[in-house]
């Protein structure tokens, strides 16, 4: 039984289709990258899985339980957490309050306190600034907070939408290092939207490429980085500008 199974998923906004018959799966402890040009439907995929947008057609399962049709707060209770595109931290809440929002679904109070310490150890700057308004943090710090906040629900499956967006390369390194360390420590299953196949290859994992709401390629992230596969997947056959990597 896969940790996450997506079967023939379609999503549309009014008449605009965003995803068409997308299927994919993720095993426990696995890491899957989702790539694709802007407007490919990557964020829509994550929102549909987490219940933030309704599915038009198809099925989503986690550990054999049906997710599609459930409210987002109930999906979170089943052990799924998301770091959305643009972080969406609560700017008027303090850093620590942001971390506590997601703990309402837990009753293991001892473990909540330990998780909080673990996140502060992974991101010491969040500990330093725990009493400041989250809106005053820098972009990189907000990304760390968004990841910490998602982890505080103690998820089995963590989905992260474009963690590198708008961050300096050294910050992106730090974010990924921490994600991977946390995955190892907790046996997390990770689904990450990442436009850069180089970055994905360096981290390692499987990769699914979306374009126009459909899955156009799947494989190992390393293969995409070495070949022109990704460009072909992005731009269609042969039109790929050689050497171009992941530009929008």
């Amino acid at each position, binding site marked *: 039984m896969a940790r996450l199974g997506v079967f023939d998923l379609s999503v549309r906004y009014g008449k605009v289709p965003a995803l068409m018959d997308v299927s994919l799966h993720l095993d426990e402890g696995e890491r899957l990258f989702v790539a694709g040009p802007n407007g490919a439907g990557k964020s829509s995929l994550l929102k549909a899985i987490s219940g933030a947008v309704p599915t038009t057609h198809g099925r989503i399962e986690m550990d054999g339980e049906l997710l599609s049709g459930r*409210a987002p707060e109930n999906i979170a209770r089943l052990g799924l957490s998301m770091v*959305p595109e643009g972080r969406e931290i609560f700017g008027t809440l303090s850093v620590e309050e942001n971390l506590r*929002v997601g703990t309402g679904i837990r009753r293991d109070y001892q473990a909540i306190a330990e998780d909080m310490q673990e996140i502060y150890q992974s991101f010491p700057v969040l500990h330093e600034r725990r009493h400041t308004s989250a809106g005053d943090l820098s972009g990189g710090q907000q990304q760390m907070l968004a990841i910490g906040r998602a982890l505080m629900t103690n998820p089995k499956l963590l989905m992260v939408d474009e963690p590198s967006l708008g961050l300096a390369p050294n910050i992106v390194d730090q974010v990924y290092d921490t994600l991977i360390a946390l995955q190892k420590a907790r046996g997390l299953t990770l689904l990450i939207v990442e436009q850069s196949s180089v970055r994905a290859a360096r981290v390692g994992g499987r990769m699914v490429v979306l374009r126009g709401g459909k899955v156009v390629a799947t494989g190992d992230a390393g293969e995409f980085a070495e070949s022109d596969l990704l460009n072909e997947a992005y731009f269609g056959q042969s039109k790929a500008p050689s050497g171009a990597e992941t530009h929008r």
Partner: protein
Amino acid sequence: MNAAPQLLFDALSLGGIYAMAALGIALIFGVMNLVNFAHGNYIAFCVFALILPSSDVVAVMFIGKLPTLLLIPVILAIGAGIAVASEYVIFRHMRGATPVAMMISSFALGFVIQNVMLTVYSSRAKAISLWPDLNTPVDIAGASIPLLQLIVIATTLIVVAGLALLLKKTRIGLEMRAAAENFTMARLLGVRANVVITGAFALSGALAAAVALIMATQTGVADIRMGGQIMLTAFIATVIGGLGSLPGAVAAGFLIGAISVVLQTFLPLEIRAFRDAFLYLFVIVILLAKPQGLFALRSAGPRV
């Protein structure tokens, strides 16, 4: 006779009533983008809950006869009850509707409540006597202030402090603040939409009941239209404060109270009848200078 303290107490007590009504509106706007125009009808409903249902001119006290320590929680519960009921019956089915559609529904709900009350109580205003002793004046700093004004000011402080504590220190308060800023994100973190929204309506209805008790004591009448004027002023206070901002609603409530009292006192007699025109002129000036309100929220995420 000392005018300055008198003025101060007038401004604070009027502002306190506006602040409490504005808080009731801002709480609900914060969590579901709804400007609930039925809020004024909740106030009238709570006033009439004090008396026996009848169309007679003479009002017979009913709940209003209860001992104070029982009367207050009962009326607060009635206010919370009608607000929660309207959420359950109407607004729950409109989540995701446009703010305009929800606002129009709230108008419709207000008319329904008003007409039901018309049928039961008739349209005539009735004299009621709730805590008449509170209108006896006490001497403070050379001014003679009705005891009720002091109680209103104290009540406002207690309500504002209590609400601030609730929002800052409790789990439901944290969830309400998170939901007010970005409802979808809060739900993705497991915050239950229904719990937060029901909580906001209950608090809002209890605030309407508190305003009702004050108005009933102060005016000594029960009038079906009595919530309308205060609803309008409170709505304007929430806009000036920055829609959805609770500190903004309180600050703007006091500001409008202060401006009203100052205009009432210092406008020449012959134009005093136009006090509200001057008041709203101030409102327009403030909104021209700060279109988002004095305390605009830092970010406004998508709602349910």
